[in-house]
């Protein structure tokens, strides 16, 4: 029988039991949806990692307080106060850690900045003067922070371009005063607009001397992170080792297992995100595999029911001249149509969810999270579901094809 007629007949047979057909393909839909999510979100995470690599110099290492997070309980330690002023001095000492050009302490908070009646949620960063070089930022106007500003705890600020636009509009912000937590800061510089690139939210940022932020805004004496820039990418592993030795000495730690800080290079960051995305991929792929197998068994079950229900029809078709392979083809085509419809639905739902995830991740993880939906995912989704239709439809179809026409016709 011709392909087109097989297809029309299959649609016809499935439409006769629309609800049953839909329930049957649910497992396939869920499985394919999960695969689509893995491919789309995994791809998004990959792109983001690449983006970070681009936005952050490979010669910069980051020191954070607390042990390196290896499990959920370790994240609590991120909030320890182990990194202090004296560590900064030691790290800047070329005798202890040679090959370092800049040591930049960092404190961070989300807060509200106000100018006149305008207010705006900003990413407050307290840092040292070298922050501009380390993050590769340039000023559109004004002057950078100075060592003197840090020493004097000066209330001066450099603002990102979005902050400037929201608070000042067309006005020149240089020399104006903005308020954060009832402290008045004089704007001394405006950052060049970066647009959507890098992990650092440059355009939403307000940069102030870290000493000022510690004292007047946060009320702390420790720092949230220390950025150390090495002279070149080649010396990064050695600098990392020296940093660890220095900090352990200062913190009187003999067992590296008991570190109250951790050092991350760009390679480490990429690896860490890689591990997270691998875990996610394995998890979602298992869900996909399980629901595809369960879905496939459901398909097999419903096709066996269909064959039993339509025994007379099979007998009739055979009496009218259908060969074994005609009946085999008919039922195989039906199960493949069933799973392919499930696959197409899974692809569509997966694409929608991936888009939704991209919107959410953009708001929570990074503004640069991109929505990608590779065409290979569509091909894979529909292909896998089609193969499932063949695999799980084969036994019922063979059963139908093997029926004796006379026995089938006698069936009541």
């Amino acid at each position, binding site marked *: 029988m011709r392909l087109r007629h097989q297809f029309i007949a299959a649609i*016809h047979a499935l439409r006769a039991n629309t609800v049953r057909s839909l329930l049957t393909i649910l497992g396939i839909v869920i499985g394919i949806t999960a695969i689509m999510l893995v491919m789309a979100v995994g791809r998004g995470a990959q792109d983001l990692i690449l983006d970070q690599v681009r936005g952050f110099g490979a010669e910069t290492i980051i020191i954070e307080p607390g042990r390196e997070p290896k499990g959920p309980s370790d994240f609590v330690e991120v909030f320890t106060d182990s990194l202090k002023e004296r560590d900064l001095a030691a790290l800047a000492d070329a005798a202890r850690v040679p090959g370092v050009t800049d040591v930049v302490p960092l404190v961070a908070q989300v807060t509200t900045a106000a100018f006149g009646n305008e207010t705006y949620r900003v990413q407050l960063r307290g840092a040292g003067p070298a922050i501009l070089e380390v993050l590769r930022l340039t000023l559109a106007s004004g002057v950078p922070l100075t060592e003197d500003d840090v020493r004097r705890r000066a209330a001066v600020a450099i603002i990102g371009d979005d902050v400037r636009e929201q608070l000042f509009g067309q006005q020149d912000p240089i020399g104006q005063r903005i308020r954060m937590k009832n402290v008045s800061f004089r704007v001394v510089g405006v950052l060049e607009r970066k647009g959507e690139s890098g992990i650092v939210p440059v355009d939403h940022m307000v940069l102030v001397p870290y000493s000022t932020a510690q004292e007047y805004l946060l009320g702390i004496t420790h720092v949230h992170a220390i950025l150390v820039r090495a002279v070149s990418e080649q010396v990064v592993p050695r600098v990392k080792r020296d940093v660890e030795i220095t900090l352990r000495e200062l913190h009187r730690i003999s067992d590296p297992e008991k570190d109250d800080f951790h050092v991350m290079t760009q390679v480490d960051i990429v690896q860490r995100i890689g591990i997270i995305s691998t875990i996610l991929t394995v998890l979602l792929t298992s869900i996909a595999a399980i629901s595809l197998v369960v879905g496939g068994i459901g398909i097999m079950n419903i096709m066996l029911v269909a064959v039993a229900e339509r025994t007379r029809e099979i007998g*009739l*078709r055979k009496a009218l001249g259908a060969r*074994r392979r005609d009946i085999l083809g008919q039922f195989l085509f039906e199960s493949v149509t069933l799973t392919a419809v499930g696959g197409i639905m899974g692809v569509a739902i997966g694409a929608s969810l991936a888009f939704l995830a991209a919107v959410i991740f953009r708001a929570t993880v990074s503004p640069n999270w991109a929505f990608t939906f590779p065409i290979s995912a569509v091909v894979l989704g529909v292909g896998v579901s089609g193969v499932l239709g063949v695999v799980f439809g084969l036994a019922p179809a063979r059963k139908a094809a093997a029926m004796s026409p006379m026995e089938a016709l006698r069936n009541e």
Partner: protein
Amino acid sequence: MALIEVDHLQKTYGTDDAQTPALRGVSFQIAAGEFVAIMGPSGSGKSTLLHILGFLDRPTGGSYRFDGRHADSFSDDELAQLRNQTMGFVFQAFNLLPRTTVLENVCLPLRYSQLPEREWRSRAERALTRVGLGHRLHHTPAQLSGGEQQRAAIARALVLDPKVLFADEPTGNLDSVSGRAVMLLLRELHAEQGHTIILITHETATAEHAERVLAFRDGRLERDERLAQSRRADQFTK
């Protein structure tokens, strides 16, 4: 040469320990163009015989030659092709596909034939017009009366111009009026186109439309009788 030749044909159902002999050695011949009625009490093996003659089942003993060739010599696929091209079947229960138009139902054998698709519709329409259903092409079986459904089934059986038409109690589910109409149609087909028709029936009145009656009892041919023209049902000549 006879179209159908059976010699000591046997059919036993079941396994070794529970055997049901349905045909216990039957021999007869039917020539092309004959109109034969098969009669006999329930369980006498009529349907069993028809299934074997129509290649829907294989005998367990004896021989069956169709058009000069031994039934044993055909593969399953060849049998399917022979059913498609040289045989038409009409069943007591009509066996039309539900939710499918009459036209589509009549097209079903064409789908399994070599005939090009563009000829399907005209052939199906011609067959339906022939049985008086030219105005019911797009009705579904549920929208037709029993008599009309059986006529649609006859159109389906005729659509590929078979050599022989098998009918197992075609009037069994019909009232006497539509039953008679169906029988008149079969008789017309026989008279005008010379179709070979082999028909099972319980009723003498129905059998009297045929030219010859094979009477069975307990799996054996009890009587093989040619009906004189005068004895045949006269409704046709009226």
